[in-house]
């Protein structure tokens, strides 16, 4: 199991390094829901503290792709008033005039915001990573893509992941910084 730490209480120093998970990247880098009770100000407060302390923050290219997926689904939902009922509906939607341009403009802006204070983590995949990915999926509750994030963090020597996703609590040898109460019980 990961060591889970309350992000509101974490003290940060200049030698610290943190990887931001996709949910946190979207929370701080997208304009979604200005008054939504779902927004999580604790993550932006932590990022401000970390940058101020001189710590290094990272985002993964994998998050860029996940953000594209989430923003496209949100655009569909905003346009149709409900989530897509099928993958076919989503595929048709992305072919409509202007949809792709608007989605990539928002994605590009969010990514530029993130990379104005965080470094991009190399997301290299090696031929023998399959075994490790399958092992991670067997031994943890991570979803299908997140083992790549864990591997990238390990390779870069980054032990701390900032996330709201409780699946990360099941990963050994990492520190999870979170505001998710489920992980802090």
């Amino acid at each position: 199991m990961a060591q889970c730490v309350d992000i509101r209480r974490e003290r940060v120093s200049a030698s610290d390094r943190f990887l931001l998970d996709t949910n946190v990247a979207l929370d701080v880098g997208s304009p979604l829901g200005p008054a939504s009770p779902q927004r999580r100000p604790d993550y932006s407060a932590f990022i401000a503290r970390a940058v101020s302390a001189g710590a290094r923050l990272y985002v993964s290219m994998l998050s860029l792709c996940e953000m594209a997926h989430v923003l496209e689904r949100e655009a569909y939902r905003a346009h149709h008033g409900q989530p897509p009922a099928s993958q076919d509906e989503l595929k048709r939607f992305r072919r409509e005039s202007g949809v792709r341009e608007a989605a990539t403009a928002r994605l590009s802006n969010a990514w530029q915001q993130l990379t104005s204070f965080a470094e991009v983590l190399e997301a290299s995949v090696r031929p023998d990573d399959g075994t490790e990915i399958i092992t991670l999926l067997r031994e943890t509750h991570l979803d299908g893509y997140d083992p790549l994030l864990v591997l990238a963090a390990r390779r870069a020597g980054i032990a701390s992941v900032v996330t709201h996703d409780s699946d990360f609590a099941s990963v050994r040898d990492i520190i999870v910084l979170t505001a998710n109460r489920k992980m802090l019980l």
Partner: protein
Amino acid sequence: MTISLREQFGEFALSADQGRCLGEQVREALQGGEVSVLDFAGIRSVISAFLNPAIGELYGTFPADVVDDRVRVINASPVQEQSVELVRSNARRYYHDPEFRRAQDAALEELFSD
């Protein structure tokens, strides 16, 4: 009234708390009928988490044309200008289109449903 973000927050405008602090100053100015000029000179990084409470939430209190006209941004980089415009356009719709608002709140709920 001109507000230098650099003087108030340093080179990085990153947190929702900082944004809320700026939003309160702008809100008071708007209530007095003043124009607020937000000076981005020297700002290396500004993100939506900051801009939403600083500017976006004003659209929930004041008419959109008032915020558009009386909250101005100067010395922002092209990316920062785009970030401000995305926050503005999103907030305009969020506060005036209940279906859009429900969709965004639901998207965030899905993101943090854990």
